[in-house]
C-alpha cells in the first residue's frame, strides 16, 4: 500500500565499549543499511551510528528502529529505546542480537522484529500507520527469497565519519547469507542460517557497481561453502579491481589463484592447533600473496595453560600477518552456551561483558582470572617484537602498492588528515 504521508524513520546503531588496549577502527555497519534497502519508498530514513556520532533525541521522527548486531549493544539499545519511548515515540528492534536476546528486549520495545526484513518490513510499517503495531513480528522460519536482497543503502552513511586520518575505511558487503557449518561458538544456525543462500551473481555485480570504495570487507560467514559459486564470484570480481578482506577461502590452488586475481587482500583464518595443516594453510595463502589474520579462541576446554603458550609461540613461527585473540564467550543459542550453562560454569550474565575479551565463565584447567591473564599474555607476546599498528601498516602498504600498480590507488583525503572517525586527532608532543 502506498501512503501520501512520507513517514520519518530514525534508524539507530547503538554504541558499545571497545576492547582495552586495541586499535579501534569504526567500520560502516552493514546490518542497518541492508535493512534500510528493504524499506518501502514512502519512508524517509535517517541513520545514526552512535559509535561515531551522538544521537539527537530531539530530532523529529515518527518511529525509531534500533538495529543491534552484538550482545554488547543490547543494554545500550534498551536505554536508547527507553529515552525515545519516554518522549512518546515508538521503537522497534531488529538485527542479530535482537534475535539472540529477544525475550529480554521485549519489555523495552513496542515491537521486536525477528528474521530478515526483505518483503516483511512493509507489513510492520502498515501496522504502525494503523496504530496496530504487534509486539512480535516473527519471520524466523520464513526467510525471504535471496533474490529480493537489494543493494545496501550506503547513501545513508556520513562518509567523513568513517575516516582515520584521511584514510577511508573498507565498505562491508555480502554475497551470500547463511552457513552450512554449525561451529561450537557460533549462533548462526539458530538465526535461521544453516542453509547457505548465495545471492544471484547479477545482484552481486549490481551492488558492487554501487560501492564507491576500492576496498571491501566481504562479511559472508565463510566463502568456502560451494566451490563452483566461490570461483564464479571471484571471476566476476576481477574486473572491479577492488581489494578485499574476507573470512575463510576454500583451500584449493585454483580457488586461491582466482581469489588473488579478484583482489583478496587478507583473510581471517581460525588457528585452533599447532598442526602442520595450519602451518601449510597459512603458507598457501601467502604463496598467492594473500595475507592472513589468525583468529584464536582461548579458554576452550581442551586447552591447558601450556597449550595456550605453545599456540602463541607457534603463531610467531608460522609468520602470521596479524593475530586476533578472543576468549571463549558463551553467546546465547550456541552449543558453548548450552554446555557451560548445564555445567553451571557461567558466572556473569551482564551482556556488556560479552565482548570476547572478558572472561564470563569458569575455564576447565585454570581460574577465570588466569584465563584473563593468558589472554593479555597472548596479545602482548604476539605483538612484542612488532606492534599491531606496525603490522597493520605493512598490510596497508602491500595493498597500496598493488593498487598503484593497477592504477586504482586513491590518495588519502588531506582535508580529513587531522580527524579520526569524526573526532580531532590529539597529537602528543615530544619532550
Amino acid at each position, binding site marked *: 500500500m502506498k501512503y501520501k504521508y512520507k513517514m520519518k524513520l530514525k534508524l539507530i546503531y547503538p554504541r558499545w565499549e571497545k576492547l582495552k588496549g586495541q586499535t579501534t577502527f569504526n567500520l560502516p555497519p552493514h546490518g542497518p543499511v541492508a535493512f534500510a534497502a528493504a524499506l518501502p519508498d514512502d519512508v524517509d530514513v535517517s541513520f545514526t551510528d552512535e559509535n561515531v556520532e551522538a544521537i539527537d533525541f530531539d530530532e523529529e521522527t515518527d518511529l525509531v528502529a534500533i538495529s543491534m548486531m552484538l550482545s554488547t549493544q543490547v543494554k545500550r539499545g534498551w536505554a536508547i529505546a527507553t529515552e525515545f519511548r519516554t518522549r512518546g515515540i515508538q521503537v522497534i528492534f531488529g538485527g542479530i542480537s535482537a534475535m539472540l536476546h*529477544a525475550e529480554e528486549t521485549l519489555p523495552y520495545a513496542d515491537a521486536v522484529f525477528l528474521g530478515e526484513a526483505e518483503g516483511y518490513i512493509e507489513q510492520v510499517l502498515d501496522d504502525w500507520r494503523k496504530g496496530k503495531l504487534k509486539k512480535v513480528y516473527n519471520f524466523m522460519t520464513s526467510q525471504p527469497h535471496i533474490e529480493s536482497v537489494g543493494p545496501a543503502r550506503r547513501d545513508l552513511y556520513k562518509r567523513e565519519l568513517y575516516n582515520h586520518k584521511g584514510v577511508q575505511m573498507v565498505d562491508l558487503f555480502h554475497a551470500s547469507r547463511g552457513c552450512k557449518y554449525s561451529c561450537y561458538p557460533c549462533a548462526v544456525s539458530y538465526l535461521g542460517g544453516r542453509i547457505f543462500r548465495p545471492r544471484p551473481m547479477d545482484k552481486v555485480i549490481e551492488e558492487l557497481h554501487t560501492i564507491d570504495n576500492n576496498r571491501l570487507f566481504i562479511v559472508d560467514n565463510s566463502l568456502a561453502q560451494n566451490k563452483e559459486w566461490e570461483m564464479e564470484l571471484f571471476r566476476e570480481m576481477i574486473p572491479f579491481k577492488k581489494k578485499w578482506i574476507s573470512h575463510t577461502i576454500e583451500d584449493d590452488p585454483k580457488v586461491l589463484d582466482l581469489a588473488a586475481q579478484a583482489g583478496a587482500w587478507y583473510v581471517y583464518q581460525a588457528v585452533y592447533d599447532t598442526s602442520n595443516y595450519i602451518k601449510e594453510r597459512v603458507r598457501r595463502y601467502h604463496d598467492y600473496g594473500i595475507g592472513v589474520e589468525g583468529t584464536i579462541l582461548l579458554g*576452550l576446554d581442551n586447552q591447558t595453560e601450556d597449550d595456550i603458550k605453545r599456540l602463541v609461540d607457534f603463531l610467531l613461527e608460522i609468520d602470521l600477518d596479524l593475530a586476533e585473540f578472543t576468549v571463549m564467550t558463551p553467546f546465547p543459542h550456541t552449543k558453548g552456551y548450552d554446555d557451560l550453562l548445564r555445567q553451571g560454569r557461567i558466572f556473569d550474565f551482564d551482556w556488556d561483558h560479552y565482548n570476547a575479551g572478558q572472561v564470563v565463565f569458569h575455564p576447565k584447567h585454570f581460574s577465570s582470572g588466569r584465563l584473563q591473564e593468558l589472554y593479555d599474555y597472548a596479545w602482548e607476546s604476539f605483538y612484542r617484537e612488532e606492534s599491531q599498528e606496525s603490522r597493520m601498516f605493512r598490510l596497508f602498504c602491500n595493498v597500496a602498492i598493488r593498487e598503484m600498480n593497477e592504477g586504482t590507488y586513491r590518495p588519502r583525503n588531506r582535508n580529513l588528515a587531522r580527524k579520526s572517525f569524526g573526532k580531532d586527532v590529539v597529537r602528543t608532543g615530544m619532550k
Partner: protein
Amino acid sequence: MYISEKYYDEVFPFSGSWEMPSKCGLKIIEKPGQSYVIVTELYQDNPGTSVTYAGRSLARQICEAKGLRLEDIIYLECNPDMNSKLSFYEEEYYQVTFNDSSPATYRLLSCEEVNALFDRTTDVKR
C-alpha cells in the same frame, strides 16, 4: 557434527523459541515405577532451538505427546560424544530440574547412575 543414532530411539519434532520448527533425539526408558525421558541435541539435524534452550517447553511437549506427566518423569539431557575436534566433552547425562521462579538446574549423572540407567556395566567412562 552428526549424532550417532545410538543416543535416541526416535527423532522428536517440537516447537522451539518463537515457534521455530525444531528436532531432538528422544529415548524413553521405563523402569519399575519411573519413566526416564532422555533428550539429545541433534546439532546439524536440528534446524531450530537447542534442547537446553527449549528446556521446560520441550519437556511439556514430550509429555503431552507421550501421555506422561511432567511431575512423574525424570528428565535427562544427553550431551553426546560427537568425535569432533571442536567438541570437548565425552558422553554426559544431566538430570534437569525445572523450577517455577528460577532457572532450571542441572546435575551431572555419575558413571554408576548412567550404567544403571542403561543396565550396562562399563560403557561410560569419565
